[in-house]
């Protein structure tokens, strides 16, 4: 970890402005991923802007009947919020499936969206990784790739996005709100927020220099049965092999998103329409064009089977 200067931000806009003008600055909130990576020299900020003091930790209703979640709302508080539990149980479930109690107490809504991959080659600075050092290659290709992407990857990178929360937000059509250094705000649909690796796997989202996430908003509740099924080897405190976020309405329509399969929370809107036809049809749409390795080919079967089980569970609850 390299030396860095440290400041506490006074306002979101001031934080953004400071980040834009200070060389190699980073925001820090929960710090659970940033410090992890700084310790092994993967993140090397020269200046940290502590945003924890900002007034961005509230969960409040929006005019259109939705909810606005402050960027600094801790994962624990978001999952435990009565309104979220009642109206967006998918989000509570996804949050509670992730990390540990200690980490959820620290990790923030914005920070969770910005988590970096847990690819073991990304984490080992002796190994080639285009995400860590563009142009160095991808050691995961041809290496140990059991947890890696099966859709949306590229020859440069097959890492997956590790978040559970973001998968639920993708299914719920969340919008990410930001403030830029010039004070302007923008609203980014979550579908567009995370990027696919292509030839630039080091770019993971569409945020511009200094741009600070201030909130995530959810449209008004969509009801239905909301289920989040995370499949992993150990029973807790592990990243997903595959996860399924599912919302099913009484008439059989619904939405589905996947975690653990791509460089971003994975949703293919056309797949939603296949829900009444069953898991096979939905999986076929979601996983169209899948590229697997020997290690991760099982994820195709696992997605379909997990979807089938989750759909069956939703049906059971409807009955």
């Amino acid at each position: 970890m390299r030396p860095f200067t440290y400041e506490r931000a006074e306002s979101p806009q001031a934080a953004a402005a400071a980040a834009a003008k200070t060389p190699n600055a980073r925001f820090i909130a929960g710090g659970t991923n940033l410090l992890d990576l700084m310790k092994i020299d993967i993140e090397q900020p020269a200046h940290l802007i502590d945003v924890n003091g900002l007034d961005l930790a509230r969960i409040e209703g929006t005019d259109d009947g939705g909810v606005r979640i402050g960027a600094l709302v801790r994962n624990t508080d978001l999952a435990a919020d009565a309104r979220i539990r009642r109206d967006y149980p998918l989000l509570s479930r996804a949050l509670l499936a992730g990390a540990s109690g200690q980490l959820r107490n620290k990790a923030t809504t914005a920070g969770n969206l910005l988590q970096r991959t847990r690819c073991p080659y990304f984490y080992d600075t002796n190994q080639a990784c285009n995400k860590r050092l563009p142009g160095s290659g991808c050691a995961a290709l041809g290496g140990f790739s059991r947890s890696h992407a099966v859709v949306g990857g590229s020859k440069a990178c097959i890492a997956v996005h590790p978040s559970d929360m973001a998968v639920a937000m993708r299914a719920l059509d969340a919008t990410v709100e930001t403030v830029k250094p010039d004070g302007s705000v923008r609203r980014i649909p979550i579908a567009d927020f995370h990027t696919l690796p292509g030839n630039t796997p080091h770019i993971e989202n569409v945020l511009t220099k200094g741009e600070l996430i201030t909130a995530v908003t959810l449209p008004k509740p969509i009801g239905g049965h909301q289920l989040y099924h995370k499949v992993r080897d150990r029973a807790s405190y592990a990243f997903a092999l595959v996860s399924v976020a599912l919302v099913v309405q009484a008439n059989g329509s619904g939405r589905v998103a996947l975690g653990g399969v791509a460089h971003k929370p994975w949703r293919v809107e056309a797949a939603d329409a296949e829900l009444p036809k069953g898991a096979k049809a939905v999986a076929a749409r979601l996983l169209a064009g899948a590229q697997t390795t020997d290690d991760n080919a099982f994820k195709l079967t696992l997605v379909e089977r997990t979807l089938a089980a989750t759909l069956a569970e939703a049906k059971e609850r409807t009955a």
Partner: protein
Amino acid sequence: MKFDTPATTNPIDRLKVVGKPVDRIDGPLKTTGTAPYAYERHDVAPDHAYGYVVGSSIAKGRIVAIDTSKARRAPGVLAVVTAQNAGKLGKGNFNTARLLGGPDIEHYHQAVAVVVAETFEQARSAAQLVHVDYARAKGTFDLASAKGSATKPKDGKPDTAVGDFDKAFAASAVTLDATYTTPDQSHAMMEPHATIAAWEGDRLTLWTANQMVDWSRGDVAKTLGIPKENVRLVSPYIGGGFGGKLFVRADAIMAALGARAAGRPVAVALQRPLMMNNTTHRPATIQRIRIGTSKEGKIDAIAHESWSGDLPGGGPETAVSQTRLLYAGPNRMTAMRLAVLDLPEGNAMRAPGEAPGMMALEIAIDEIAEKVGMDPVEFRVLNDTQVDPENPKRPFSQRRFVECMRTGAKKFGWERRAARPGSVREGRWLKGLGVASAFRNNLVMKSAARVRLERSGRLVVETDMTDIGTGSYTIIGQTAAEMLGLPLDRVDVRLGDSSFPVSAGSGGQWGGNSSTAGVYAACVKLREAIAQKLGVDANTAVFDGGDVVANDRRVPLTKAVAGGDIVAEDGMEYGDLDERYQQSTFGAHFVEVRVDAATGEIRIDRMLAVCAAGRILNPKSARSQVIGAMTMGVGAALMEELVVDKRLGFFVNHDLALYEVPVHADIPHQEVVFLDETDPISSPMKAKGVGELGICGVAAAVANAVYNATGVRVRDYPVTLDKFLDKLPPV
């Protein structure tokens, strides 16, 4: 004192303190965070600097150039030590690879430098500035492809044979020929390898985390080229070892070298992401097992072959050893072959040999029992032996294996197991029961102690024995209390210091029995000295309730020390009882699992172990040893695997996020039953080991339960869902 005839009645048999499930005497320290571990000795080295280890980024090859100039100029840096400036270093007797690499590199993350700075933050930062250029050499990293080149290991007994296996196997009515694999595994103890080193002239003190104080004192001396007498090792609390801290590791040597270079005490803890490739691991195995039986299920022929790999000069994983002893059968053979691999050093991890050996053998037994059409409990009972099957004249000292099986089956409700696999479903879950034998040899080791009865009436026990979570403090205290007729709270136990008499140390599940036997010997001597002081006959005097009772008189012990402390020192050595009798520990593991019929996720609902392991010195801490071993067995069954990158030659998942070990949610309520047993052939304590018995067979019991639940047999550990998902019924 020499133990060469079976024990008769002795003061331990009073069982006033020994055998009682007392709370650990170190409990209040451990639960309040006041037990000092190696890296926490601000009390003895208040001005220490911090070392940070740099590991090799290649698996095999040479350092072409190493530039430490930038690191040396970094703020706060006091010294940078590499092979270039470390001086001549030797290699410890127990190390396969050198602890400081360069110019030759033997394995990934082999230490190549230590950067010493005023603060931890400065050392860590400057370590990134050490610039190393490597020339990579071609290495061999894949056991499966190196199997063909494996050779017969030099040491031990790589090949055994009795009768004519091939002929008997060919003639058997029912046969099994199956191959199993177990992966490389990591000890992953919670406390990283850590040391604070301080020099006083040419004398070195290491506050370190080490299971074997005397072995390691010798190896530190040998590595640094200094006399053993000049080295002091202090290791009173150890945050887990499981075999990973049996030997001197890079933390100790880097701290010593760093301290010498910096002229200051230096603290080094191996950073977690470095540990799994820098230190040792349990080596992977490929095991072929062939069993031939009669129609009735009697074993005629049994063969167990195992292949493993290690660095040049290393040894095999002795995965076939239990197969020589566990089941009857006139025709038998075992063989071990060793391939040279350029992976990190393979070495002992909890129950080396038996743990991976039983993972394979006990699936094989489940398979052959099914082929015969027998219940696997009955199959094991039928094939019990009371003598060494290779040498029928040699009996077991105690063998209550059948009773373990029967007791466990009854208690667990084994009769409810469906013989047809994949036939029990509750909602989304497939349910199954599994069983496996537990077996681990009992070893005894020479061990000494010093006991001192102080004028205050307190008894102090000193030995270099270690407590790695095993409960040594408490059982040693119980032993001394029993011998002197004192309550436990009048005994102080001091461990883990090389200035104390040399003990057995903690390894091979010999520690509990051997170290207490050493304390027994010292206490016998102390009793004699006390008796002499009081003018009574030591042989007939009874030490009871703080008094010595002799000739119908009760004299307080304190009277003997009115004129000053009485000190006695002795140790226990062993004759040939372990040759005349086979000494082993036995058990049975029962497991109930459920498997998600759609996703293949495996969850364990119930676990039971029944153990016959001699006298249980403290049922509370012994039970903990067993449940802990069962937990590690669950890890071996379901998740633990150091994944080898076969191109680059390293364990890829080298931290605790990616090398998964069981968490709370994986472990149900666990039950342990100890059969009431004493083994007078083992030691005057009549105890045996139990900490490793508990892991042997667990993984197979889980794997067999998964088979019973799903009907899909997985022979490659860990049993993860990707290995059987496509064979589960349609959703």
